[in-house]
């Protein structure tokens, strides 16, 4: 059996109070957080279905001449892949998971807050790098398309 020994008692500091209040707000905002995540997925699915139907429609028409260039095709593939990775990265930032915490445990709250920040910043870094690469590839495709258009 573990013996409990009080090693420090102090009055709550403003920083500790702010952390506690932030978790209280998050607990109350949980329904809104879940709805916002569902709306994000809904918007993405709608948008991606639009893209899919757009691609299927393009397939039936004769493609522009620049689409025959292998560099344009590969840059296009790279753009799609990079933007999809960026999309997954942003989902990693916004999609919630259920976390159970003791409201009286300040150390758990502080640790959870640190992990939250660390995870969000990691996913956002992935998203920003992928988005940057996708943007570069897209720019290259557009420039080639403009230069080769007759």
């Amino acid at each position, binding site marked *: *059996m573990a*013996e409990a020994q009080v090693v420090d008692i102090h*009055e709550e500091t403003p920083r*500790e109070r702010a952390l506690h209040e932030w978790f209280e707000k998050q607990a109350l905002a949980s329904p809104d957080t879940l709805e916002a995540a569902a709306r994000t997925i809904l918007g993405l699915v709608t948008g991606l279905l639009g893209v899919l139907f757009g691609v299927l429609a393009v397939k039936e028409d004769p493609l522009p001449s620049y689409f025959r260039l292998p560099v344009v095709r590969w840059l296009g593939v790279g753009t799609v892949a990079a933007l999809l990775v960026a999309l997954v990265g942003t989902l990693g930032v916004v999609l919630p998971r*259920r*976390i159970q915490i003791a*409201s009286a445990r300040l150390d758990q709250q502080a640790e959870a807050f640190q992990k*939250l920040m660390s995870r969000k910043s990691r996913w956002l870094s992935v998203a920003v790098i992928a988005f940057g690469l996708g943007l570069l590839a897209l720019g290259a495709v557009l420039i080639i398309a403009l230069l080769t258009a007759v």
Partner: protein
Amino acid sequence: MSNHLTEIACSRCGHTWYEDLARLDKADQDIYKNIYKGKVHNGREKTYRVPCPECGTNNVVTVRFEEQKDG
């Protein structure tokens, strides 16, 4: 008396009382954020937010748990 009852003295008014730490350890708050589930650990040292029943001051209490050796 429960083994989890710990004597606490208010940092402001000095009032002393016994608090059940097992009750404070119960996960009673659900939040939805994107951190890995179940990664919040229970170390040997825990920090609790305990309001004083006398003056209402929120005390931050750090408790160290040490294994009792038999014999």
